[in-house]
């Protein structure tokens, strides 16, 4: 455990737009959080967390599946969708059923959505395209794919440009396959931090809950701030946030466990995942097994 002080504990935040509804209240001081916020890319946060340089952080669902035994999930918090998500899409020149053996390019930026797509290809579409990962920083159509997986701003742009006639929203497709929400990210705490400093963790957790409640009550402010940052219309941001969901209720947990079970069954995760949820300051933790 590092030395305590003003710079401790540390809370990792993904510097993407989808974290704004949770973090805007914290960063503008509307809700006080007893932690130092560290914003960075997911890969950097994952590494820092595993090296003990962050006490609490957001992680992608797949990343948590890979080091679940090192971390506790914070209850009630996620980034999820139930049905359409808008920002995780497969776009194609031909119907997805005809993609067998044809080049499909994968985003280099999100392992969770790549695994989600591979589950859907196997279980829902039953086709085996020729998958390749385009290099980071390359244009979307690098390698002239027949279809491509895009996330975030790139997804929103490629759909708007309309050059690929077939668009599959993977949040909606996941719901078709499983009937459940898709959880893209979780908030996790280090086990040593949770056991040694339960009150500090409770403080952070409560602040995150309060920040989420603040976000729910200020949709106009979030839309305005998001629109200013991205230089787009507030309506566009409003729609984007409206399909996202920041809760972690039973349906979300079922969706998450289904994701882990299918990922493991398809060989995309090495082990079944046991989800362990922090039970608060006084209670034991809850353990949920994916398979």
């Amino acid at each position, binding site marked *: 455990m590092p030395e305590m002080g003003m710079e401790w504990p540390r809370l990792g935040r993904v510097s993407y737009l989808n974290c704004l509804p949770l973090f805007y209240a914290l960063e503008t001081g509307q809700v006080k959080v007893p932690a130092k916020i560290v914003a960075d890319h997911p890969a950097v946060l994952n590494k820092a967390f595993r090296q003990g340089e962050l006490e609490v952080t957001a992680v992608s669902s797949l990343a948590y599946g890979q080091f679940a035994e090192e971390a506790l999930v914070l209850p009630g918090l996620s980034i999820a969708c139930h049905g359409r998500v808008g920002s995780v899409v497969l776009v194609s020149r031909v119907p997805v059923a005809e993609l067998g053996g044809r080049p499909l390019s994968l985003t280099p930026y999100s392992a969770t959505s790549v695994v989600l797509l591979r589950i859907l290809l196997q279980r829902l579409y039953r086709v085996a395209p020729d998958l390749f990962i385009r290099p980071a920083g390359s244009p979307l159509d690098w390698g002239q794919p027949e279809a491509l997986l895009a996330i975030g701003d790139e997804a929103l742009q490629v759909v708007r440009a309309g050059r690929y006639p077939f668009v599959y929203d993977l949040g909606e497709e996941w719901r078709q396959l499983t009937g459940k929400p898709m959880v893209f990210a979780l908030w996790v705490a280090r086990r040593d931090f949770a056991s040694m400093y339960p009150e500090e963790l409770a403080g952070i957790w409560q602040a995150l809950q309060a920040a989420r409640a603040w976000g*729910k*009550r*200020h*949709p*106009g*402010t979030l*839309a*305005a*701030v998001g*629109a*200013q940052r991205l230089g787009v*219309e*507030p*309506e566009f941001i409003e729609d984007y946030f409206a399909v996202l969901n920041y809760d972690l209720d039973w349906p979300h947990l079922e969706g998450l466990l289904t994701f882990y079970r299918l990922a493991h069954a398809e060989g995309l995760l090495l082990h079944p995942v046991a989800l362990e949820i922090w039970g608060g300051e006084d209670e034991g933790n809850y353990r949920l097994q994916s398979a």
Partner: protein
Amino acid sequence: MKETIACKVLDGERLSFHEAERLYQEADLLELGYLANQVRQKLHPEGTVTFVVDRNINYTNICVNACRFCAFYRPPGHPEGYVLSREEIGRKIEATLAAGGTQILMQGGLHPELGLAWFEDLFSWIKSRYPVTLHSLSPVEIDDLARKERLPVAEVLQRLQKAGLDSLPGGGAEILVDRVRNRVSPKKTSTARWLEVMRAAHALGMKSTATMVFGLGETIGERIAHLEAIRQLQDETGGFTAFIPWSFQPGNTDLGGEEAGACEYLRILALSRIYLDNFPNIQVSWVTQGTKIAQTALFFGANDFGSTMLEENVVRAAGASFHADQEELLRCIRAAGFRPAQRDNEYHIWRSFQAG
């Protein structure tokens, strides 16, 4: 069951959502009216009915929102579209002051070319010339300005307040349930955003009213959900001065349908007086219901006669055609057995009149 709920009301206890639903289903008109009148007398034992002398100024009828229940708006580019000049607005304010008015209610369409600066300039100009309360711009207009300027709602309100805006009317609430809103006014401010604007205004110390337009195809549960949403916010901020329900006016609108009758109006009014235990005042809407039902409403929970509405164009465009001047309002209030009193926007008594 209804007796148990009635006892709670008489004991001054708060009703839950389900109790209110039950009461509405089981109690008849006079039972609801009796309970509401008891609540009203407890809150306002002095036998006064207040009103404000104000003028509605609809600064523009150009609107991009195209709500299906609105007969007033014209789309941008329409030959009948207008924006009032500063001189025209000034003349209307002078006429209001001459008639003993204290307040201006400016509301208009969502004009794509009128930005925050236009309102800031107009409000400071008005405040530098005329001693009036600016009770203006509904949450829908504030939300539209926040979108156009890409500014947080609180910042828009702060700037308008600095320019002279005193309080907000509660327009555009219709029914605060998105299922209903998406059907009748899909482009209009969502429930969460309407509440966000009011919360932000109250946080700046601005007061506001809350309204409800019923008869838009909603269920009774959705009407109570509306009351619940504003009751919760009132618990949090205490910023609402009054609640004003009225029935949808179907004339000249796309939505068509039947207008709710007097009986339904009185039942909803009574239920709102009973349910909104943290709202000091309930206003009648004589413009939509007529002065005779408005008089009756004073025995179903209402304690305020609203405003003289020296000019009202929006409900008039939908075919509601009740007119009354101040003398007529005084006569109505007296004839119902109450003492009229002119108030200001925050319900301070300005001038008390003799009872009838």
